[in-house]
């Protein structure tokens, strides 16, 4: 089966500093892939490059067999790739529901509408009129996920969903994953918690200093392999 989303030799820069040194990555339709790695390994940069927030050469990123590298973020979301950004980054002056509606600004139609999200995260229905900043971290993360889903993406990218959240809250957030994947959503997550990453994904990529240091089926990778790829011993 060919990949839905594919990068080949993806490089990315922040000014003169190179952050990615040729990432080869593929995401097959319907699978969940996890990206792990230490801070500064390039995981977030990778997700920003795919969504157009960091520039990339056209041929380095292919989505549904079309080169999309270097397109504007607005064009990429319209093609069906949505990002839950690191640190959530909700619109502070918008209410919960307004934040969710902003997610639909790309105009893509599909099953993910407000009512559906409120069934997935009932607490958000209760708080729909409140300022997004008044919510707890976990609830804000739910809004961020919901906002991304509102664009009815084919590929959902999640950058560090567990950042700054209590373990119990992280568990609650990840419990929504099966419902999100149920209709064939393709997902890539960046996750610091290696065991969690292995549990929710079918394949794992480990990044180290802007390169892929390990890849494999989530169930087959051993702790020793991951540890070596993680720290570069």
């Amino acid at each position: 089966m060919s990949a839905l989303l594919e990068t080949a030799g993806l490089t990315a820069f922040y000014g003169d500093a190179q952050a990615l040194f040729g990432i080869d990555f593929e995401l097959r339709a319907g699978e969940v892939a996890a990206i792990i790695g230490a801070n500064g390994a390039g995981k977030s940069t990778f997700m920003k490059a795919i969504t157009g927030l960091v520039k990339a050469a056209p041929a380095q990123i292919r989505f549904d067999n079309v080169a999309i590298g270097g397109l504007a973020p607005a064009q990429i979301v319209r093609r069906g790739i949505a990002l839950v950004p690191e640190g959530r980054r909700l619109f502070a002056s918008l209410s919960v529901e307004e934040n969710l509606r902003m997610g639909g600004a790309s105009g893509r139609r599909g099953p993910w509408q407000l009512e559906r999200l409120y069934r997935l995260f009932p607490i958000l229905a209760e708080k729909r009129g409140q300022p997004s900043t008044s919510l707890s971290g976990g609830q804000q993360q739910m809004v961020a996920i919901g906002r991304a889903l509102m664009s009815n993406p084919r590929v959902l990218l999640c950058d560090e969903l567990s950042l700054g959240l209590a373990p119990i809250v992280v568990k609650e957030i990840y419990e929504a994953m099966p419902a999100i994947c149920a209709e064939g959503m393709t997902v890539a997550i960046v996750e610091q918690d290696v065991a969690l990453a292995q549990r929710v994904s079918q394949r794992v990529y480990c990044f180290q200093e802007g390169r892929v240091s390990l890849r494999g089926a989530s169930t087959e990778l051993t702790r020793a392999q991951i540890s070596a790829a993680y720290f570069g011993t």
Partner: protein
Amino acid sequence: MMLDVLLQGLLLGGLYGLFALGLSLVFGVMRLTNTAHGDFIVLAAFAAIAGLAVLAPMLPAGIAAPLLVAALLLPVSFGFGYALQRWVLNGTLGRDPLPSLVVTFGLSIVIQNLLLETFSADPRSIDSAGLSTASLALPGGVAVGALPVAILAFAVAATAALQWLFGRTSIGRSFRAVSDDREIAELMGLDARKVYALATAIAFVLIAAAGVLQAMRTTVSPADGPALLLFAFEAVIIGGMGSFWGTLVGALLLGVTQQIGFRLDPGWGIWLGHLAFLAVLVVRPQGLFPKTVG
């Protein structure tokens, strides 16, 4: 006597409110300070004056003439504002506020000199067919001008409309979203450059309305722009950045303060307004009603 000063001040403040709303909108959405704001008001006034002169044979007599010209001018101004933002000012936006200040300051000088070349330095006004001299008698022996009352009513309506647009519509939602986090707004599918252009276009509708009403109420001359910008700026700062009702209240306070000054001594009006502005900056630099837009 006190009531009279208060009323005249509020009526003056209504006009300042119209000057200030556009500035408040543009600053709120894109943190851009348009230093040519006052000059664009004057430009709009002269455009209306020229339009009236050119179209005179075709226009009906009386108050309908300036209203018709204003109705033509508003959509033209909308398009002009959109184009100016889209193809000129967007290129100046960034972390550094200096490029946009320099460019709009340059525009200010260009507009002033263009108007001076074309229309000479004479003050001009728009004939409002007696509306500017008509007055309404209020109980207590106070009389207010019909035109200033209409201007204040228009300013209140414009403020309410802007606040509704910002708080209740999808356009307003996109304004607030790009203001909060441009990068994420683009990730949602918005084109921030177009959102900015739309905000400036709406601001230019207010600018055109303010220009026409200013020229009907008093006179305009090519060098008036910076003073109008200053009043608008003071109103925005007094009211607090980012809330339209705050901007209007700031404008009304400025109008009342100036009117009190004028009553004390004809030379003190503007000066007392500046003093009130400075006092607010010292005591409450965030303004009286600080709030992020919306």
